[in-house]
């Protein structure tokens, strides 16, 4: 049983008036080819009075009839007009029928510029690339996904972006009208509300049902994503809305102008209270997690730290504070604090408390890391965006001064308030801390260097050797460590000279494994456009979640040096299973591997260099002898400098 298609289409879209006038809408739905041919020859329904000629209609619509079967400018062309106002440079996406109209408009009507379509093998890769790209440029990308299965693929990447406070514009195609969409696969790939699966970890989502609503939705979504705390937004796009002509809605359509919102800053009374506490403290400590949203934030944090001559702990979800500065300290320094200023901490409780996974019955126990009566100050924009379901808000920590505000936007006022609170005596007392701080810093550096020397010549290669061989060859370039997933004992943060915001981009946010590979490609894309050298320390487990992003890098000529931390296991999980076996007082079953069954990536070993070569990368490996690493790096760096991606498969120690 079939129904007339013109009725369903006209009722559904309300756009076919113009198309019907132009005589291009199909007259009737058909069951078979012969019927279709017969109906295609049937007379078109025309208005009863003063019918214009076909030629006149075509001229008024403004499209050559022989080139445009839909009878006017497609809705998705208007969508491209809207998107272009937002200066989105790329759209890394995996192609899909539910956004085919927008896809076609982007590459043809939009001439594949701003945004340029980047071919991805997996939706998680598209989101991850956008994630990494933003951390370099401070500008979001748009990724398009098939609204159901594609969005399902994308979800972990979206959760990472949400937890890492990174804006990504996710466009999900969806064919909403059950009466007119194609049966079979397209209907499997349709849903009432595609955004529901990401609503808990996006800042906002929408399903516009008209082109004007799309224009508002797109600009609103961009603005919400770019208001700290940043975060992903999702917009569902009906396939019909994309495909059909603007029609009668065309004359009144407008594109709202986007103006960058100002970030929320702390209330001045609280800022002054915080300044008084910090100035009066004998041992203040600053802890920063995502404090430096932009390069400017690094300078502000240095200025505040030097005013107070207080140590800074960089929790490293951004490059907040230069590790070459004599006030840079490891986390343990908070045990000496009498006042702690936490800036954009993702886990304040975990900053001042410890959880040890080794209690009486296999249950962990808590302990404090700080002295009694320490005053705690928090500036954190994430408190303005707390959702219920996913637990990224962590345990609740009582603080003495709480400012739900953006740290970087609040720092200028806090710096001025500290200056105002400093009298001569306090200034002299604070300046008296400098020499001790410099000596403490030198001692820590010496200890780190001594620790790195242990097992320097070991095979498989120590993580310290891996990192320092790499650093030795890039340190004179304008380098950017775009990702370091897996665990190399934080050697880059401990021993590389990290002074610029782009030297370190932080981690995934939600600790969803599989972030490193796509984020490094996305960040390398941004660095390519800035003439910067990108390097990633790429773990084996992370790469295998969606290795197809290697192909994307090769196809789009994104230069990236990817050095594998190939320890042949998911080592975090190795230790979890080992811990459970120890608690239960029974040996762990290794099978034929070197660790608990299910946690090792061996037998067979994966030849990552061959994997990369198969997708167009220059690659070499496996490198097990530390003496071979330096020469191989030299070759790989030359390749990357020529504009191509290169991968070294290095066998490493576990951590």
């Amino acid at each position, binding site marked *: 049983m079939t129904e007339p298609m013109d009725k369903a289409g006209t009722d559904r879209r309300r756009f076919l008036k113009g198309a019907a006038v132009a005589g291009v809408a199909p007259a009737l739905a058909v069951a078979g080819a012969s019927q279709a041919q017969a109906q295609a020859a049937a007379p078109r329904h025309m208005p009863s009075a003063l019918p214009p000629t076909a030629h006149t209609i075509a001229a008024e619509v403004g499209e050559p009839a022989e080139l445009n079967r839909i009878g006017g400018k497609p809705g998705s062309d208007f969508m491209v007009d809207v998107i272009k106002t937002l200066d989105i440079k790329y759209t890394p996406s995996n192609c899909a029928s539910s956004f085919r109209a927008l896809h076609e408009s982007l590459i043809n009507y939009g001439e594949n510029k701003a945004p340029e379509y980047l071919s991805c093998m997996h939706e998680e890769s598209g989101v991850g690339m956008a994630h990494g790209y933003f951390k370099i440029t401070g500008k979001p990308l748009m990724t398009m996904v098939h609204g159901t299965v594609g969005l399902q693929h994308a979800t972990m990447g979206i959760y990472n972006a949400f937890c890492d406070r990174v804006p990504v514009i996710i466009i999900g195609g969806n064919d909403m009208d059950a009466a007119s969409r194609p049966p079979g696969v397209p209907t499997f790939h349709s849903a009432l509300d595609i955004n529901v699966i990401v609503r808990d970890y996006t800042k906002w989502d929408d399903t516009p049902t008209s082109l004007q609503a799309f224009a508002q939705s797109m600009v609103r979504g961009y603005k919400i994503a770019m208001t700290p705390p940043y975060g992903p937004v999702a917009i569902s796009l009906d396939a019909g809305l994309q495909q059909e002509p603007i029609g009668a809605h065309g004359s009144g359509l407008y594109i709202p102008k986007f103006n960058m919102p100002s970030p929320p800053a702390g209330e001045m009374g609280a800022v002054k209270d915080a300044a008084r506490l910090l100035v009066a403290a004998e041992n203040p400590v600053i802890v920063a997690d995502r404090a430096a949203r932009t390069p400017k934030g690094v300078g502000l944090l240095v200025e505040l730290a030097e005013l107070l001559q207080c140590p800074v702990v960089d929790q490293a979800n951004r490059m907040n504070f230069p590790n070459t500065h004599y006030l840079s300290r490891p986390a343990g320094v908070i045990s000496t604090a009498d006042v702690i200023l936490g800036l954009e901490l993702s886990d304040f409780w975990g900053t001042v408390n410890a959880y040890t996974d*080794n209690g009486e019955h296999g249950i962990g126990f808590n302990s404090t890391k700080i002295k009694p009566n320490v005053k705690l100050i928090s500036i954190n924009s994430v408190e303005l965006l707390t959702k219920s379901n996913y637990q990224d808000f962590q345990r609740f920590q009582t603080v003495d001064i709480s400012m739900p505000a953006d740290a970087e936007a609040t720092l200028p006022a806090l710096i001025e308030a500290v200056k105002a609170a400093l009298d001569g005596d306090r200034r002299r007392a604070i300046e008296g801390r400098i020499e001790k701080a410099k000596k403490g810093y030198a001692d820590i550096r010496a200890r780190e*260097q001594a620790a790195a020397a242990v097992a320097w010549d070991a095979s498989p290669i120590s993580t310290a050797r891996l990192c320092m061989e790499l650093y030795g060859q890039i340190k004179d370039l304008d380098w950017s460590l775009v990702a370091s997933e897996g665990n190399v*004992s934080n050697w880059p943060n401990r*021993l590389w000279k990290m002074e610029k915001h782009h030297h370190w981009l932080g981690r995934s946010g939600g600790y969803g494994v599989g972030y490193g590979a796509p984020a490094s490609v996305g960040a390398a894309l941004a660095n390519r456009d800035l003439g910067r050298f990108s390097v990633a320390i790429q773990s084996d487990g992370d790469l295998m979640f969606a290795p197809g992003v290697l192909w994307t890098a090769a196809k789009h000529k994104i230069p990236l040096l990817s050095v594998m931390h190939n320890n042949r296991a998911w080592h975090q999980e190795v230790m979890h299973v080992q811990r459970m076996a120890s608690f239960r007082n029974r040996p762990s079953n290794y099978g034929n591997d070197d660790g608990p069954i299910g946690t090792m990536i061996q037998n067979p070993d994966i030849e990552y260099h061959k994997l990369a070569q198969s997708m167009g990368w220059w690659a070499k490996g496996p490198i097990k002898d530390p003496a071979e690493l330096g020469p191989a790096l030299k070759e790989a760096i030359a390749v990357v400098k020529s504009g191509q991606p290169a991968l070294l498969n290095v066998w490493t120690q*576990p951590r």
Partner: protein
Amino acid sequence: MNKIVLMAALSAALVGGASAALAGSPDKGKQTFMQKGCWQCHGLEGQGGSAGPRLANTQLPEEALIAFVHQTNGAMPPFSTKLVSDAELSDVYAYLQSRPKPADPKTIPLLSP
């Protein structure tokens, strides 16, 4: 309670010092180090890292290390005598003490960039 027991064991071991050391086999110790999973946190050479401290050339007396492994309630889970015997841990100790002494970092150019 566990902390008290552990501290007592470590104190006794430290007082006893290395004089009470058992004679372990470095080769057997390496096998045990691998088979029992010690390497997973401490590295194949016992060099340590973010998941576990350095054990190579440890200054800890042998008895203290053995007591720690059996009774720790710190970050590391305890391994009972059923899982790893004192004799096996003596071998592990010998293996750790047999690791080459690290070079002075000042002699490694890559560590003084």
